[in-house]
């Protein structure tokens, strides 16, 4: 449910590091709480985002929620599949359902995130 190689935010987003680039998505807990995801609004590639700042919106049939980036920096890639076929966020939240890739402005930001065990503990 919560892979060990990811870092997590209390806002229920995850990051997967690859060098200084973080892939960002929402957790299984988030997608299950939302229900069927029917709309994802993401910024343009090249946009700057602050750590824990809003970068987009995700909507289920019932409600809209803000997306907050667990890390700050420049958005270098946006997942077109997430906007074209939003249900991918339900299907593969840690895989094809990723949302954005962020080039970190400061690697120390990762210290403010949780490992899988700590994140899971917040869900109980």
């Amino acid at each position, binding site marked *: 449910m919560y892979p060990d190689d990811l870092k997590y935010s209390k*806002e*229920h*987003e995850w990051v997967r590091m690859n060098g200084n680039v973080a892939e960002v998505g*929402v957790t299984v807990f*988030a997608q299950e*709480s*939302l*229900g*069927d995801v*029917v*709309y994802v*609004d993401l910024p343009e590639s090249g946009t700057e985002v602050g750590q824990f700042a809003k970068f987009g*919106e*995700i*909507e*289920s*049939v*019932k*409600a*809209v*929620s*803000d*997306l*907050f980036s667990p890390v700050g920096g420049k958005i270098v890639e946006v997942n077109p599949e997430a906007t074209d076929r939003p249900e991918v966020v339900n299907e593969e939240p840690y895989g094809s359902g990723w949302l954005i890739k962020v080039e970190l402005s400061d690697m120390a930001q990762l210290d403010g995130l949780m490992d899988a065990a700590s994140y899971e503990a917040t869900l109980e």
Partner: protein
Amino acid sequence: MLSDESQSEITNLKKTVLHATHVESNAKMVPFGGWDMPVQYADGIIAEVRAVRNSAGMFDVSHMGRLEFEGSGAESFLGTILSANMPIIKVGRGKYNFICNATGGIIDDAMVYRVGDEKFLLVINAGNVGDDMDWINPHLRGSSGFTMNVTTNDTAMIAVQGPEAVRIIDSLTGDEASKIRRFRIGEAEVNGIPATLARTGYTGEDGFEIVVAADQGVKLWSTLRDAGVIECGLGARDVLRLEAGLPLHGNDLSTDTNPFEAGFGRFAYFEAPGCISGLALKQLAEQEQKRALVGFKMIGRGIPRAGLNILESGVSDPNDSNVIGNVTSGTHSPTVDGGIGMGYVEQKYSATGTHIVIDVRGRLVEAEIVEMPFYKRG
């Protein structure tokens, strides 16, 4: 990213007799109208909507208020508090109507059924029971010739809806159910359970709303589930009613709206002797309405939600644009495959085909006013 209302501990919520059954079925429970109700089951809202559109789904609607009026004075009393022409409702028939206040504002919308010569069933919204009783009770004093019983807690109510609903209920009632025609009400045994069946609903599909004794509710639910009826929650119910162009009190109707601007003037009868809202409704009926409740489909990408502003088409800056109305209901429709909504707009913008703009939290998205319903069964 989530502000999940289901996580908040609210301890004084009421529970229907089916509550434990919903929890066993892994329903996600949320507070609704003072009750702890299933918003969806494991397969999710879209799967539930499709079940109702393609086969049959069921909803626990035991939270809805049920009042029985009986006696020689019941008909005339209901004529004073409702907007229904009571004498023309024959035994075994139901009518949609409004409970309006003395200025014509809508306190609630309701179904009233004549279940016997001098016996009536009134079904009201769960969240409005308090307001409805505050309205009804003072008028009870000084009225006579009938009794009023609140039977909400003595009974369970399950709505079975969809193209397969009538066939399934027929098979469980020895073909008695299909003898009850649309908007009528009758009695039958559903798999041996004595039941009142109203051929009404809130989804745009054919089907029944079935009332049984409270202690038979769980048995009826499991009987229906065994017969292939899919469990559905309030999330699907809200999508289905919006697709069918049916208003929700609290969203599309309120004491600040009247039946005529909502487009439901035909359900606002005001000539009953002593009808408390009669004079106000008569005046409203003769006036030109300043605004109208319309349905619209999104053209651009985005999902309308209740509370968003509706702007004039052709504007580019939300700050200096002309607000012409507001969204009262909105969702993503799996059946239409897009964003749909209802809202009030100034009368001159209300014609079908008019382009409008929805201010989706600062993002301006084009939409078009369309005829409702968004979905009509074949």
